[in-house]
């Protein structure tokens, strides 16, 4: 029984590796589906803006509020902008954006491709001489890989704005001096790392959602499972990747 489970797990891993390999093979093979890529960028990026704005702002505002008492004990509230900046740019913005996107975008991709699979729309594309992998998978993975980093930078900015509003209310710090402190606390490596890890997260969300949807079992239950597993697996992988990237960055800083 346990042996069977291990065997199934390795077969699944091999299938995922083949799926990722196929993505890179198709990525550079013409024809390119530019129109569909732009449509997917709109779906992933633009339509996620309201949710990302709200979560980014709330995270910045609440984090500032909760951090104040600890710093107040040492009379160090002037360090709040630096603390918020480091927390948001190094950890919160990429992680929160990725997790929110895994829930919103990943489940959407999983469910959409899953239901296309169930209703034979993917087969219909294939028999009409179109490469469904290129049209459906490549375009969506490119869109998430490009748009999640943009959303992450946007989320960081909105989070910093949330922090500013809170600080401005309590400490009367001006906009300019707040942002001077914010950018003084981070360096190029921090911004680069934020972009890099959100590219990895974006790719993960796209490829996991597409894999789950593309290989969903037939039936409505299969669609639900595809959507559900897209989120669960993406989130798990995002945490693992975050852990690894943090270790690598620590090494680079030393």
């Amino acid at each position, binding site marked *: 029984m346990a042996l069977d489970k291990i065997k199934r797990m390795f077969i699944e891993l091999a299938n995922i590796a083949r799926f990722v390999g196929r993505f890179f093979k198709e990525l550079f093979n013409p024809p390119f589906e530019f129109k569909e890529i732009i449509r997917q960028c709109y779906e992933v990026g633009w339509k996620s803006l309201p949710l990302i704005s709200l979560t980014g702002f709330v995270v910045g505002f609440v984090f500032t509020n909760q951090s104040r008492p600890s710093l107040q004990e040492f009379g160090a509230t002037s360090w709040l902008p630096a603390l918020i900046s480091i927390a948001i740019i190094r950890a919160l913005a990429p992680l929160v954006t990725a997790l929110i996107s895994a829930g919103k975008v990943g489940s959407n991709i999983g469910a959409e491709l899953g239901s*296309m699979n169930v209703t034979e*729309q993917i*087969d*219909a*594309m*294939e*028999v*009409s*001489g*179109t490469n469904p992998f290129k049209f459906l998978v490549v375009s969506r993975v490119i869109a998430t890989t490009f748009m999640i980093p943009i959303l992450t930078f946007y989320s960081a900015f909105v989070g910093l704005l949330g922090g500013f509003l809170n600080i401005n209310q309590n400490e009367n710090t001006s906009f300019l001096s707040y942002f001077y402190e914010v950018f003084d606390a981070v360096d190029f490596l921090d911004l680069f790392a934020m972009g890099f890890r959100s590219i990895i997260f974006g790719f993960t969300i796209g490829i996991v959602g597409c894999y789950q949807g593309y290989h969903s079992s037939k039936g409505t239950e299969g669609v639900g499972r595809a959507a559900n597993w897209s989120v669960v697996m993406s989130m798990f992988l995002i945490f693992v990747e975050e852990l690894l990237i943090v270790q690598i960055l620590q090494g680079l800083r030393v």
Partner: protein
Amino acid sequence: MIKQHTSTIDYNDKVIDIHDVYKSFGTLEVLKGVDLQLFKGENLVVLGRSGTGKSVLIKLISGLLMPDQGTINVLGEQVDELDVKELQKLRLRIGFSFQSSALYDSMTIRENLEFPLVRNKRHLKRAEIDESVENVLEAVGLSQTINQMPSELSGGQRKRIGIARTLILQPDIMLYDEPTAGLDPITCIDINNLINEVQQQYKTSSIIITHDLACAKTVGDRIVMLLDGRFERQGNFDEIFDTDDARVKPFHDYNFID
């Protein structure tokens, strides 16, 4: 009204030639040595109970599935020996009408119909694409639906649009998977007439998968019956059911209850 069906069949030209094909899914053996030929201009009906592998057969013909054993020759090409590009090229000559219609939910009817054309005939100008779309819509009698979404159409209309989408590439072979399943009797007659009109107008050779005997009688030049993974009976409608075989007779009796 049921329209009269006439075919011009060239019995010297086999457009599909299937020889000794086996297909299993895990331990379930679906096809156990199937032999089948489709001649140019012919409407061939494949009858059989649910789960006997009728749909598997046309998925093998279109290369969506590969046989475990045996050969499938379509328009002179051996399907299981083609590479991806060759298979893609062959598929442009095969129209596949799905049981579920398989229309793309997120696209309008116009976009659904354009989809195969835009991707496979990239040299076409906008006006030529529009003309092709209008022509196939007219052929299936649904010109007014051009800007609607698939969810706004009835089951019968969706079937027609599914057929129109395959016709836009002007295929040599049409594969119909349960074209009348889930439709009311009047709409079934419309679809059967449409299958015959398509054959007349586009000079196609067709395989029609069904368990609807009215459909089989209306559109079929020849009928084959899939029993226990093999084609055990073939002929015209009367020949097929002129038997006491307990696997065949109930089929007829259920469809034509007095």
